[in-house]
């Protein structure tokens, strides 16, 4: 796969690799997504807006420049905005790959961090020299204003230009609680949502504080994903129940939705419970999915926690073939890349995908993509 270099949420030539319940693969234009769904299906998206979570400033005791990347919060409550977990980098910016970024100055409990208009104290170290819990001074409104005005979206070295906030908000973005964008939702626009209605396909949302995808530090990356608070609206639970009863499929738009729905179901004995929760589980090959019948997602590189999550949906052999197909077809990866629609092959509660659009043009014809195993 190749990196998507432009922050374009819905490039007209975006591709969609569809992996059906038998492990068969089709390469389709993403614009024809709706033909891969059927009446009675339900799309569930994460409507979290993305915070400008990168805060440049100074470690006051040493005078050293730092970048603080907010990484986690205990809850989504609007007034619970003082304490964050955060990853601290030394001098430099996103143009250096995170893997090569300088370490921060030695951080100690009680250290003052001056981040533009925001002042924060290190509350404690979290078992790693880069990872801290901090506490902002001021009222909740002051903190939100400081983050809104001084913060920048977390930037990526593979993009040519710095991202603005509007680049990283999906069309359905609402509560600003994600630390990196729930990028599977970039494919959604209002025209698609209207089309879903016309086709009798449901749309619902939850709010999940999507965390960092990568820190550049292997020891920290091994701990990803961090615990992520979420809110599951009662209306979404009702929509899932109706979908279940009528034989439709629950399609999670993104790994964060999968994590939240499965967490909400696991703690309630199978049917997700509405309300607030903190997703702290890992999803992988040994996970039995209780709610999600299919995943609509960006493409993920082997080795990432997002890729690991795909193993809950399909056997390793199918996943390996999907990875090979994505590479052979030149799919774009990263936040602004192409997409996959992967059916859960391991539980298969609901009906098969129908109406999957065929290949378009000679470039799409890849033998291994067409063949069942």
């Amino acid at each position, binding site marked *: 796969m190749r990196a998507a270099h432009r922050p374009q949420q819905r490039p007209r030539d975006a591709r969609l690799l569809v992996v059906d319940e038998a492990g068969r693969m089709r390469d389709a234009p993403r614009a024809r997504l709706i033909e891969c769904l059927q009446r009675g299906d339900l799309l569930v998206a994460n409507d979290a807006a993305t915070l400008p979570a990168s805060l440049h400033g100074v470690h006051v005791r040493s005078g050293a420049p730092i970048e603080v990347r907010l990484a986690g919060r205990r809850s989504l409550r609007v007034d619970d905005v003082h304490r964050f977990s955060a990853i601290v980098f030394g001098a430099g910016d996103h143009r250096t790959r995170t893997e090569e970024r300088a370490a921060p100055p030695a951080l100690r409990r009680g250290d003052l961090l001056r981040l533009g208009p925001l002042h924060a104290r290190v509350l404690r170290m979290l078992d790693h020299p880069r990872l801290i819990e901090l506490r902002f001074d001021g009222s*909740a409104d002051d903190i*939100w204003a400081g983050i809104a005005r001084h913060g920048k979206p977390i930037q990526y070295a593979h993009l040519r230009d710095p991202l603005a906030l*509007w680049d990283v908000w999906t*069309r359905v973005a*609402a*509560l600003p609680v994600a630390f990196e964008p729930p990028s599977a939702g970039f494919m959604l626009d209002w025209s698609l949502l209207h089309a879903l209605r016309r086709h009798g396909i449901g749309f*619902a*949302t939850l*709010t999940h504080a999507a965390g960092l995808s990568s820190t550049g530090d292997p020891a920290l990356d091994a701990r990803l994903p961090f615990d992520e608070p979420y809110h599951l609206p009662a*209306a979404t639970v009702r929509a899932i129940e109706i979908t279940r009863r009528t034989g439709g499929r629950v399609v999670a738009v993104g790994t964060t939705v999968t994590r939240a729905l499965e967490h909400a179901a696991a703690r309630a004995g199978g049917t997700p419970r509405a309300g607030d929760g903190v997703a702290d589980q890992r999803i992988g090959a040994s996970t039995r999915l209780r709610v999600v019948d299919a995943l609509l997602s960006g493409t993920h590189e082997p080795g990432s926690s997002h890729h690991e999550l795909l193993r809950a949906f399909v056997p390793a052999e199918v996943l390996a073939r999907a990875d090979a197909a994505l590479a052979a077809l030149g799919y774009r990866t990263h936040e602004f890349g192409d997409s996959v629609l992967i059916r859960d092959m391991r539980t298969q509660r609901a009906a098969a995908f129908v109406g999957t659009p065929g290949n378009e043009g000679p470039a799409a014809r890849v033998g291994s993509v067409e063949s069942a195993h």
Partner: protein
Amino acid sequence: MTHPSDWRDLRVAITGGTSGLGLALVRALHAAGAHVAFVARNAARVASTAAALPGTHGIVGDVARKDDTHRIALQINAALGGLDVLIHNASTLGPTPLRLLADTDCEDLEAALATNLVGPFRLTKALLGALAASARDGGHPCIVHITSDAAVTPYASWGAYSASKAALLHMSRIWHEELHDLGIEVLAQDPGDMDTPLHAAALPDADPASLKRPAAAAAELLDRIAFTRAAIAGAPA
């Protein structure tokens, strides 16, 4: 779900909230128990208004500036935990004293369009996710555009303001057509000639006693919003 005519716990954002109709709306909504966030450019006036009405959330920003749009939207959603009613009230007259269109600099026309038309367009887009979430939760969300009879009637020397308000009125109608299916109601409200700083700048010689009180115009608008939301709540989904 609260009753649609009940403002308690409703999440409302108002632009231009430190003077005129906007301030009257902030006060009325605060008194009615709504959760209120308001936006204005002047930091000192935002702070003093928020201090005078404890529990309201003051946000400093300029709706005419593209770079401010998402910052404002972020702070509204963060402060209120979502959004049910968005009132686009911030408005500029354009150049004062008012002048003939032929004497209006194109930069002044552009500035009027930026505040009165493009700003509300951008902010609605940035907040549409929150409003649609409210709709899915049965919140009967509503967007209000404050317009003017100048949007309909061509008065000489009101060119920049009139043209921008006419465009705003039409944009409001198109939003209404497009958002109705999502369960988001869109209104345009002409509050009438009010005793406000904007009116004084336009017509300095007008007798304030002949003009409507902003508080009366605010009460009329809130009644209309409540009526509209009740009608949606009563209508079959």
